[in-house]
């Protein structure tokens, strides 16, 4: 406050004037943020979207306009098409299972049990750890050797017949990766559902119980509708997370075996930094951006319509 009182004397003549109900902050407050944002996101994204229509190799400025050539190549590129399919499968699996498990954990923890605070911390802990480390942890769990990790555990409980080459089997690898993401992020869904559950009035539950509503009926008609905002946030976060999945793939399978676990993000990375096809890579990135934007717009619209009807 002393700084303000000394400023009174110094700046008395320049004191800003009231306008309307309040004083408008000067526009230069927004300038540093805008400059950095424009430099790091807006400008590169515009250049990136533009290069999707060129044959840019990334070496120097040499590039010429090729129209839709990159996109024509994309629909005939088995690796890119497979990556698109994998990205969608992974996203669907992650959205459904991660949020399903997150909801069950939240319902289990949001009760009178004594260990609820400790359980919350345990289930949330993987969220704060780097996906690189979680991926390597699971890479060991998925060790193909019959006497290590998950296979050893299955053997120990008499389920040795279920032992698998979790990451080496092309039809299984993608689900093994999805499960790693689900294990790491279910706690995130859980805390968002928990925040929603705290807003469900206790009296409503109790009066429904008095009226003879069973556990499922109470969930279906009271808890679930009131969890709508939490559900929307969870679905949105896990969708964008699934669509842009990269780190877990690079750390666990590097897209393999073959192209079995490549995603749009790993393909565009490899096209750019392994094969030097920058123009083609940005075309893949543009497809990814359109996916993400479309999903976001649909979900924001849905959220709004739900909020206005509520």
């Amino acid at each position, binding site marked *: 406050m002393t700084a303000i009182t000394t400023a009174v004397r110094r700046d008395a003549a320049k004191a800003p004037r009231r306008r309307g109900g309040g004083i408008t902050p000067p526009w230069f407050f927004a300038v540093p943020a805008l400059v950095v944002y424009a430099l790091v996101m807006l400008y590169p994204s515009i250049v990136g979207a533009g290069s999707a229509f060129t044959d840019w190799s990334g070496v120097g400025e040499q590039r010429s306009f090729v129209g839709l050539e990159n996109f024509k190549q994309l629909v005939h590129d088995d690796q890119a098409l497979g990556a698109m399919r994998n990205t969608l499968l992974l996203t669907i699996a992650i959205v459904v299972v991660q949020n399903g498990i997150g909801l069950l954990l939240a319902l289990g923890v949001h009760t009178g049990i004594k260990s609820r605070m400790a359980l919350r911390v345990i289930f949330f802990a993987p969220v704060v750890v780097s996906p690189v480390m979680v991926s390597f942890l699971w890479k060991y769990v998925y060790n193909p050797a019959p006497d290590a990790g998950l296979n050893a555990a299955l053997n120990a409980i008499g389920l040795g017949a279920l032992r698998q080459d979790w990451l080496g089997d092309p039809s299984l690898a993608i689900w093994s990766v999805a499960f790693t993401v689900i294990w790491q992020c279910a706690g995130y869904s859980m805390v968002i559902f928990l925040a929603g559950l705290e807003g469900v009035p206790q009296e409503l539950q109790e009066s429904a119980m008095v009226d003879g509503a069973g556990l499922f009926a109470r969930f279906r008609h009271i808890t679930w509708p009131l969890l709508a905002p939490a559900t929307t946030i969870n679905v949105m976060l896990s969708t964008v997370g699934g669509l842009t999945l990269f780190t877990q793939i690079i750390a666990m399978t590097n897209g393999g075996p073959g192209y079995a676990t490549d995603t749009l993000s790993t393909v565009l990375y490899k096209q750019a930094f392994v094969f030097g096809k920058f123009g083609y*890579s940005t075309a893949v990135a543009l497809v990814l951006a359109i996916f993400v934007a479309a999903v976001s717009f649909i979900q924001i619209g849905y959220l709004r319509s739900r909020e206005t009807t509520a």
Partner: protein
Amino acid sequence: MRTGYRPRTLVRELVMIAVAIMFLFPVYALVTLAFKDPEQIANKPLSLPDPPSVGSFGEAWQSASLGSALLNSTLITVSSVVVLIVLGSLAAYFLARTASRLSYSLYILFLVGIILPFQLGMIPLYQLVNDMGLLGTYQGMILFYTGIQLPFTVFLYTGFIRSLPADYTNAALIDGASHLQAFGYVIFPLLRPITGTVLILNAVHIWNDFFTPLLYLGGSGRETVPVRVFAFVNEYTSDYGLVAAGLVLAALPILLVFLVLQRYVIRGFSSGLKG
């Protein structure tokens, strides 16, 4: 229902604890692995280490150069978060308190950044950072994180400032303080709850990020923890005990911070997104 601790509650408690034990199985496998010598790893993969050996930890710390990686990560995370808080809160204050078409358009422009995947601008930005001579530098990473995380930061701050009454600054400004002084002494302290959320969400994201530091810092000697761990694990793939010890050491700092600040961290993650 919180109607006392009944037999049903006990059943629920036991089920949840059983779920937690299954959930922790991978962590058990990794931590015990780190304390075993190669012979135990080969013969008793799932048992407790007997006797426990701690030799792998020192070797992993050295081989992965985790000491300097932690220093790099801390420097980049702290600087980026400080710059984000300053630039983000200032911009949001303008956007939230100005009722003009310009400020509304600017706000929408920032929101676009939340749904824009950074992969679209990844290659042009890489070239730009290269041209500016910032590849392999701390400054390059701080600039990157500030730009990438600003939309979300501005979004959180703007929502919060809109819910504050306008009177405080007016009073300070009538007293003759400059706008910056009024902001720093009057408004910014009022933003503490949302600053906490901004700090936690950005710090966890930046600390754990992998893709960009791999691209920008690889081979520079300024690699962050996830990049060093990635290189280390790929180099010693078959030495399970050593790899496990490295992973445990690398995950420990953020887990300790999380355990100390668990309530704030969980609150930050669950509240920040409601906007």
